[in-house]
């Protein structure tokens, strides 16, 4: 992280001495709805709660489509089914004792102790202060060690050349990617695309730490679980009903 600091200082000096700045007078560039200028902090921890009792299979298909639309994956032409990215997938599980079948959406669980980050040799896999786990594709060398380490099969490798990516979601051949919890929307105080696509309360998004948030309040009263809780990764994505 030191390097970033140095760079920042450097730019500061550059700004002060030469007065380089974008003068946006009279020019309308891309305008953002709300602009976040302050670094995210660990006062927040973003999370999802997925209630499999309420979540229908159609909901899950809708979530997957919304994710594809928003982030631009799924249109790869050369990759085989098992090579295509899958940021979010539909799983059906049967309880061996009760025979109850539940369907759920599985994506990156945004672990608090993410194995993918621990193993990444170049710091490309990283966790933001607010708990969102991302791949810094500028640093990713495509070694796929993070894919070996992720317990949830959440990551995908881009197997072919891409173009016409979404402006907010750079993606490219030879690097690894996964669910970003729609970080570009979250930073604008919006909700992840998959959550928006579900009409019921089956999927809740919010700040796990905020005691007044719906997700926090719900988690306090209902039975919920983490997938592979035994690994102690303290995931940001929680499930109820399984």
């Amino acid at each position, binding site marked *: 992280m030191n390097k*970033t600091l140095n*760079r*920042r200082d*450097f*730019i500061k000096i*550059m700004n002060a001495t*030469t*007065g*380089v*700045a*974008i*003068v*946006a*007078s*009279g*020019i309308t*560039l*891309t305008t*953002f709805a709300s*602009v*976040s*200028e*302050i*670094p*995210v902090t660990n006062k927040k921890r973003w999370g999802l709660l997925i209630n499999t009792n309420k979540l229908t299979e159609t909901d899950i298909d809708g979530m997957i489509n919304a994710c594809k639309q928003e982030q631009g994956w799924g249109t790869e032409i050369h990759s085989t089914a098992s090579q295509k990215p899958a940021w979010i997938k539909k799983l059906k599980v049967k309880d061996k004792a009760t025979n109850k079948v539940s369907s759920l959406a599985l994506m990156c669980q945004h672990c608090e102790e993410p194995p993918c980050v621990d193993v990444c040799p170049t710091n490309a896999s*990283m966790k*933001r*202060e*607010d708990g969102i786990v*991302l791949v*810094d*594709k*500028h640093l990713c060398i495509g070694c796929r060690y993070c894919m070996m380490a992720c317990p949830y099969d959440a990551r995908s490798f881009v197997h072919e050349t*891409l*173009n*016409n*990516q*979404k*402006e907010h979601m*750079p*993606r*490219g*051949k*030879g*690097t690894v990617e996964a669910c970003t919890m729609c*970080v*570009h929307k979250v*930073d*604008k105080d919006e909700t992840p695309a998959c959550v928006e696509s579900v009409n019921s309360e089956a999927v809740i998004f919010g700040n796990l730490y905020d005691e007044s948030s719906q997700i926090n309040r719900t988690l306090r009263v209902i039975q919920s679980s983490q997938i592979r809780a035994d690994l102690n990764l303290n995931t940001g994505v929680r499930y109820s009903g399984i």
Partner: protein
Amino acid sequence: MNRFLVVFLSLFVSSVFAYIDEYVNLGEQASSIKLSGKVFHKNPSIIRKMHPEFLRHKRDKTLRQGIRTNEYSLKGCVSCHANKNKINNQYYSVDKKGQFCSDCHKKVGVSFDCFSCHRTVPREDLL
């Protein structure tokens, strides 16, 4: 060795300066801004020299800290400096031959890697 480095660096920097005004293919929006007499980059030569640093700095802030201002945003560069094909009304990719980014980079002989991942044309709804 040091002398060699100095010579090399000054050649390198001067090659950046060499293209100040011959450069015609500024891109759609950038050209119209220039024509209207407005100033976008107060000091273009600094931008010319330093934009990799600015972009790199910005990228780390955005990606790692969630700071999403449009200062030094690559999206901004692309949306201003992209050209449109007059016939089919489609944008050319800025990294394609003859376009703003690639042309200049080619002239100064510096490779760049932004567009193996980043979108090369302005956003859909700007089309």
